[in-house]
């Protein structure tokens, strides 16, 4: 049995006293099979409880649910409690959500990334809610002396219909807390859900629209110092010497400290440290090659033609297939590096004290921040607390811990509470980008237009494996070879919303459009034929659900009235990523000689939709993100220095540039999968394929605006 950690105990006691008694149900995040436990002062004092998250039902009828996952705009803080409240038949207006702090021995998956939070938590949350309901019903049955089978619950109330008796949950909470928790509880039939599937507003709306301090950057502490850090301007440089005399003389500056390759200017306000930082005189020396985008283009070509490739998947005899082909189609696709650009720039607070470390800020991986702080300070993890704030977007950037590392270093050196702030320029030029990648596709068609061979080589800049070798069309082609080569670049990279698939889907789905055309087939029909073939005669292992993919293809085709709209140029795309299936149709209309992307139609299978409002937002946002970066996103380099450093040079999509986005969810009752990412990957190709229909020009490189073919497109 684990003991409670400090933070949870504190949280728990605070809520316990505020509620003035009631039912406190602890449940176990780490272990899906664990039975929830009733927590009371005695069991707490004895340390004889094993729980890591909890819900409380107060005598005041207020239900509090702890949400352990970081919220970055993906809607977890609203969706999680909805799941509990559904099984509990709670009155949603009386449910409160509290963001739990880092407690890694308790929350096994306290990470935001990979669209994995909902699938991980679905069962556990339902079980917690159902257990609480069971106890309340038991308590009512005892009090009224009627059988459990005659008792019903609805919206936070318990009813005994035949006698007309009813009570609010709060009135039974104390009695429920004296009962024994069942080993098994029955979960609801999914068809009877009343809250799940509805539109529920973001639980933080009120705070957001009134400007309450919610985000990491909003965190201030009495006596806190501000730090801006000068990092090497070019990737590949390292620090040689620092002359901070002029900077130190500036008003408000407390000190300038150096660690690793960084120079931190520390002072009393953001503006003062920003001005002082400009006066630093720093010398650097070359540690690695200072790469330019022109180098990258040359390297890509070398790796595609002669790089030592790692084979990712191989089926059949590719060489023979291409030799026997009636037609071979080849095309290359390339994307640039991208910054994540969450609207809240990186920032983090650290206070390294004599007895431990306090960390506060926006992070997608609190555990990693803590681990790094432990390494720097030598404190064991249990002496380090991490408070997770709301986050102004993440898109994968806050999976890194660089900002937490910096804050810890500076606080340790200054022996003071410090907040490290990144300006937008720091954020955009500071690294961990979506890697630049280039793909070469080759397809072999036989006389009847069947795809008998398929080759894909992916080459990337610190991209690891830039392919997803088991994704469609793998499994549907008899002879297939997928391999990759990686170039180690000093430019740092990391996961970016829908890692790898954010561009791979684009390239693959655009290329399949080219192949369909060469085969003389309709793009939708072509994909359906491939899937039917994979179903009848699968080639090697298949790691996607063919039927679910077919279903979204058909739904998107139906909702877009595929191929039947006059004057509308349609493009198709479908992709499976992050456990969900999404098909999209882009619609381009030519207005005054100019092709304009007017509509996107998305068919989405993410299993059961938990929050309709939030889900719609995620899909629309993902589509807008996918289109925006495909059209405009471009980070280029000259001698290791990014050419773009703020939103004047790096263009983000704006309201006047968005298409309408029409979203349709598949209703199949399957356990929910995530939605933070899957809508993004297929968006770009649906748009590009539609532009092709309108202009007869392929857009093979991102961003579109740099493409000759796109020059007269808005």
């Amino acid at each position, binding site marked *: 049995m684990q003991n409670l950690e400090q933070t949870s105990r504190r949280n728990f006691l605070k809520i316990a006293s505020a509620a003035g008694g009631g039912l406190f149900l602890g449940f176990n995040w780490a272990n899906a099979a664990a039975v929830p436990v009733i927590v009371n002062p005695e069991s707490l004092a004895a340390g004889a409880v094993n729980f890591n998250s909890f819900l409380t039902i107060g005598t005041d009828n207020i239900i509090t649910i702890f949400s352990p996952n970081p919220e970055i*705009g993906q809607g977890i803080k609203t969706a999680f409690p909805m799941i509990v409240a559904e099984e509990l038949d709670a009155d949603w207006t009386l449910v409160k959500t509290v963001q739990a702090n880092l407690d890694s021995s308790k929350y096994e998956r306290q990470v935001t990334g990979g669209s994995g939070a909902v699938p991980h938590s679905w069962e556990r949350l339902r079980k917690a809610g159902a257990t609480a309901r069971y106890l309340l019903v038991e308590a009512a049955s005892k009090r009224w002396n009627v059988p459990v089978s005659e008792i019903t619950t609805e919206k936070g109330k318990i009813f005994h219909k035949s006698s007309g008796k009813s009570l609010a949950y709060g009135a039974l909470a104390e009695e429920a807390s004296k009962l024994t928790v069942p080993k098994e509880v029955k979960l609801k039939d999914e068809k009877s859900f009343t809250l799940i599937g509805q539109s529920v507003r973001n639980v933080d709306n009120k705070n957001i629209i009134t400007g309450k301090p919610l985000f990491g950057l909003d965190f201030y502490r009495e006596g806190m110092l501000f730090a801006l850090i000068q990092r090497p301007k070019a990737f590949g440089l390292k620090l040689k010497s620092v002359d901070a005399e002029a900077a130190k003389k500036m008003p408000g500056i407390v000190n300038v400290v150096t660690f690793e390759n960084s120079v931190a200017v520390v002072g009393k306000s953001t503006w003062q440290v920003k001005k002082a930082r400009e006066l630093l005189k720093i010398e650097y020396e070359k540690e690695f090659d200072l790469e330019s985008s022109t180098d990258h283009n040359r390297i890509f070509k070398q790796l595609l033609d002669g790089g030592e490739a790692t084979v990712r998947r191989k089926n059949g005899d590719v060489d023979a297939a291409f030799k026997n082909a009636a037609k071979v189609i080849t095309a290359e696709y390339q994307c640039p590096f991208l910054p994540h650009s969450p*609207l*809240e720039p990186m920032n983090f607070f650290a206070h390294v004290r004599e007895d431990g470390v306090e960390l506060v800020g926006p992070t997608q991986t609190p555990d990693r921040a803590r681990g790094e702080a432990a390494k720097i300070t030598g404190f064991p993890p249990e002496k380090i607390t991490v408070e997770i704030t709301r986050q*102004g977007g993440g898109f994968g950037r806050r999976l890194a811990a660089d900002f937490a590392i910096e804050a810890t270093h500076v606080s340790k050196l200054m022996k003071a509470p410090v907040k490290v702030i990144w300006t937008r320029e720091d954020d955009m030029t500071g690294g961990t980008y979506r890697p630049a990648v280039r793909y070469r596709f080759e397809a072999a068609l036989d006389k009847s237009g069947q795809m008998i061979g398929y080759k894909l080589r992916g080459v990337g800049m610190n991209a690891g494996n830039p392919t997803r070798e088991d994704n469609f069309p793998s499994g549907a082609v008899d002879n297939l070879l997928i391999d990759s080569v990686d170039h180690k670049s000093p430019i740092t990279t990391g996961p970016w919303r829908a890692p790898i698939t954010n561009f791979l889907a684009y390239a693959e789905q655009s290329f399949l459009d080219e192949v369909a055309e060469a085969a003389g087939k309709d793009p939708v029909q072509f994909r359906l034929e491939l899937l039917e073939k994979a179903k009848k005669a699968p080639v090697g292992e298949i790691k996607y659900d063919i039927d679910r993919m077919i279903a979204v293809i058909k739904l998107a085709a139906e909702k877009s009235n595929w191929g039947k709209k006059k004057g509308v140029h349609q493009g198709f795309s479908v992709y499976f990523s992050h456990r969900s299936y999404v098909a999209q149709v882009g619609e381009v209309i030519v207005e005054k000689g100019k092709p304009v992307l007017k509509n996107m139609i998305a068919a989405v299978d993410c299993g059961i939709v938990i929050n309709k409002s939030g889900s719609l937002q995620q899909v629309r946002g*993902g589509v807008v993100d996918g289109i925006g970066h495909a059209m405009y996103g471009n980070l280029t380099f000259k001698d290791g220095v990014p050419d773009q450093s703020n939103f004047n040079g790096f263009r983000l999509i704006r*309201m006047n540039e968005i298409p309408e986005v029409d979203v349709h969810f598949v209703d199949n009752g399957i356990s929910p999968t995530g939605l933070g990412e899957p809508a993004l990957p297929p968006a770009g190709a649906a748009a590009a394929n539609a532009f092709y229909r309108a202009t007869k020009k392929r857009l093979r490189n991102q961003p579109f605006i740099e493409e000759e073919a796109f020059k007269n497109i808005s």
Partner: protein
Amino acid sequence: MALLKLQINNRSYETDVEEDTPLLWVLRDNLGLVGTKFGCGIAQCGACTVHLDGEAVRSCTLPVSAVGKGKVTTIEGLSEKGDHPVQKAWDEIDVAQCGYCQAGQIMTAAAFLKKNPKPTDAQIVETMSGNLCRCGTYHRIREAVKSAASKTK
């Protein structure tokens, strides 16, 4: 450093800052009004939008010394109970994802609707295109401005 008097949200504030400090950082670092956000610092994103004598301005590029006797309104002072028609529309239509850009969006929309209570769709898009939303909530921002317009007298 200079001692400056500022009129913000119908209150007087006094603060000792360098005169070239952007209003944004005075609000945030000196006065504890953190509803106004920092996104770019170069007037590109609109996250820092406040009202100066009723006009939407970008506080990240406005030196505090230029505010003078002007009346500043921030998101905290847009309404007493968070019930300005624009705020209400933002809640009802459930606009926010991460929420970071939304104070700036709301301030831009509120100033716009005050001047132009019955805007056309094209005018809404034109005005709101000045504000970035990295989460891509543009469809609902547009809808919320429209809804607020229909409810403002």
